[in-house]
C-alpha cells in the first residue's frame, strides 16, 4: 500500500469529487429558495406552517409525485429481483456450460448495450401493441379487461435491459471461481442443489448484489423506454420530472431531488453500517 500521496493527487481528487457534487449541492440549496421562479437564489423561504421547508410540504401534498414515486420503486424492485435471478442463471450457463445456443446468447446479450434507447423503446411499443391487439381479439377482451400498456409492460421492458448487465457482472465474479470448493462439497455428499445454495451462491453473492445494484440504478433512472411502454397511471418519477421541466420550475423540483438524494444517502449509510458490523 503506497502511502506516498502526492499533494497534486489529493488536490485532483478533491476537485473531481467537487465537480461530481457541485450540481447536487446547488440543487439542494435551491430547494430552500424563496423565489418561486427559482432563477436566482433570493434567500431562504419562510412561508406557511413548514417555514423553510415550505417546498417540501408542497411536494408531499402533490399526489402525482407520490404516485410516480410509488410506481418507480415498484418497477425498480420487481425488475431488479427478476433480472438478478435470470441474469445469474445466464451467467452460470455461459461461464460453465457448453450448449448449442451459446454463441447466439452471447451475441444477444450485447444488444441492449449497443442499441439506442429510442429504438428499443419504440420497437417494444410496437411489439406490445401488436400482440395485445391480437390477443384481445383472440380472447374477446373488451373495455377495462383489455390487455394494454401499464406497470406490467414497463417492468417487462426494464427486465429486458437489466439482464445483460447482471449477467456481465456475475460472469466476472465467476471468472476466477475455484471449482474445487464445489467438488469438495459434492464429495462430502451434497447434491447439486445443496452445493449451489450453500457453497456457490454465497461466494458469488457480492457479484449478484453488484449486478442487482446496477439493475436497480438503471431502472430507477430510465426515461425513454419507460415513456414508450407506460400507460395510464403508470407514470414514473423520471417521466414526471421531465414533464415538470416544461414550465417555470419551482423549487418544488429541487425539494424532490433533495428528498431523493437524502433517501439514497441514508440507505447507503445504513447499508455501510450493516456491512461494517458483519466484518
Amino acid at each position: 500500500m503506497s502511502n506516498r500521496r502526492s499533494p497534486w493527487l489529493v488536490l485532483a481528487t478533491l476537485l473531481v469529487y467537487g465537480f461530481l457534487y457541485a450540481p447536487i449541492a446547488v440543487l439542494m440549496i435551491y430547494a430552500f429558495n424563496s423565489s418561486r421562479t427559482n432563477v436566482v437564489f433570493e434567500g431562504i423561504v419562510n412561508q406557511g406552517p413548514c417555514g423553510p421547508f415550505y417546498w417540501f410540504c408542497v411536494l408531499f401534498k402533490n399526489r402525482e409525485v407520490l404516485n410516480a414515486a410509488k410506481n418507480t420503486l415498484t418497477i425498480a424492485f420487481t425488475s431488479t429481483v427478476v433480472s438478478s435471478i435470470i441474469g445469474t442463471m445466464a451467467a452460470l450457463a455461459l461461464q460453465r456450460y457448453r450448449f448449442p445456443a451459446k454463441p447466439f446468447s452471447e451475441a444477444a446479450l450485447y444488444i441492449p448495450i449497443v442499441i439506442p434507447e429510442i429504438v428499443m423503446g419504440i420497437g417494444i411499443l410496437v411489439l406490445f401493441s401488436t400482440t395485445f391487439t391480437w390477443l384481445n381479439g383472440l380472447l374477446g377482451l373488451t373495455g377495462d379487461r383489455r390487455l394494454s400498456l401499464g406497470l406490467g409492460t414497463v417492468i417487462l421492458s426494464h427486465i429486458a435491459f437489466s439482464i445483460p448487465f447482471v449477467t456481465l457482472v456475475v460472469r466476472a465474479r465467476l471468472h476466477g471461481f475455484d471449482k474445487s470448493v464445489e467438488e469438495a462439497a459434492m464429495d462430502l455428499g451434497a447434491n447439486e442443489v445443496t452445493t449451489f445454495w450453500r457453497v456457490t451462491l454465497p461466494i458469488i453473492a457480492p457479484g449478484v448484489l453488484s449486478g442487482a445494484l446496477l439493475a436497480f440504478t438503471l431502472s430507477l433512472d430510465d426515461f425513454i423506454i419507460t415513456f414508450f411502454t407506460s400507460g395510464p397511471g403508470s407514470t414514473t418519477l423520471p417521466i414526471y420530472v421531465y414533464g415538470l421541466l416544461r414550465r417555470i420550475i419551482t423549487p418544488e423540483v429541487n425539494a424532490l431531488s433533495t428528498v431523493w438524494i437524502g433517501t439514497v444517502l441514508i440507505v447507503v449509510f445504513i447499508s455501510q453500517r450493516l456491512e461494517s458490523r458483519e466484518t
Partner: protein
Amino acid sequence: MFKSTLWKTLLALSALGLVLAACGGTTPAPVVKTAPSGFVCPEPQSKSEVTSKELNLFVWTEYIPQDILDCFELQYGIKVNRDEYSANEEMYAKLSAGGTTYDLVQPTDFIVSLMIRQGLLQKLDKSKLAIMGNFDPNYLNFSFDPGNEYTLPYQAGTDAIVVNTDKVKDLPKSWADLWNPDYAGRLVMLDDSRAVIGMTLLTLGYDVNTKDPKQLDEAKAKLAQLVPNVKLFDSDSPKTALIAGDVDLGMTWTGEAFLAQQENAAIQYIYPTEGAILWQDNYAIPANAPHLDAAYAWLNYSMQGDLFWLMLRDFPYTNPNQAALDYAKANQADIYNAYFNSPITNTPPDEIKKGRRIDDVGDALPLYDKIWTEVKGQ
C-alpha cells in the same frame, strides 16, 4: 428519517384517497363538496349515469386546474389517471403505435386532421354533450374538423413576438425585424419546425403550409440567417430564459407571454405585421377509449361555465368557452377583467383575421424536417 416520513405520508394519503373515493361514490350527499384547496365544487348541470370507475386522461402538462380534477372525482367518485405529454408528436406516436387505453386527448389543430385520417379518433355523440351550446361560434367549425364531429375547442392562442422592453430599445414590429443583427445571440425561438419555418415563410410572403420545394428552399436560406441571432430554441418553457435574462426577446405563445409579463411587467407581447400564428387545442376521444361514459361525464362537467372559468384563473390562454367567460364576468370580475383587458389572452379581432393557422402538409413534412435539421446544425 425522510424515508419513514415519506412512507407514512404515502399511507396517510392512500387512506385519505380511499375515504374520498368512498364518500364520492356512494351517497348522493346534499352536503356541498369542497376541493382540498377550499374551492367549492358546483353541482353537475347534467349529471349522467356512469358505471366506469376510472378515467384516463392523456393531456398537456399544466393544462387542467387541480380544482376541476378534484371536483370531478368528488362528484362522480371516479379515479382520474392523468398522463401528460409536452408535444403533439409524442401523443401521436403513442396513440398510433396502439396498445394504449386513453379516454381523452388534447390534440392541437394541425394534428387533428391527420389523426382523423388515421382512424385514431372517434366521432362525438353530440346527444350526450350538454355543453355544446357553451362555445363561442368563432372557435367552431374549422377546416381541420368541419362540423366539430371529432373535437371540442379547449383553449386557443397565438404565437407572436415577445420582448423585454427594459433590455431592447428598438422594438421589433414584424417577424422580419427579428433578423436585425443587433439581436445577435439574444433571441429565444420556439423549438417547433412548423411554427418557425412558417413564420419565415410569412416574411417572404408565402403560405405557412406551402409544399413548394422552391419556396421552402428560400425559407431555409432566410432562416439560416436568423440562427446567429438565436440563443436557444425552447418549446417547453421559453419564458424561463426570458425572465432569467438569458435572452431579451423572441417568439413564444400566449400563455408563456402572459406569465412572463406577470413576473416582469417590462415584458410585452407584440403581434407582428405579417400576422401571428393561430393555434387551438381541442378535446378528442381516441377510437378505443375504454371509459366512454366517464369521458362524456368529464366533458360535460369540466366545461360547464361555473367550473371552466378556473382556466382564466390558472392558465392564461384564450378561452373559447363563452359560458365560462360569462360566468367569470358576472362572478369573478377581477379575473375576468385581467383576461379581457390583456391583448395577450383576449386576442384583438384584426389580429385573428391576419393570423395564419398551421395545417398538416402530408408528404412535404420530411422537407420541413430536413430544413430544420440543417439550419439548426450549423
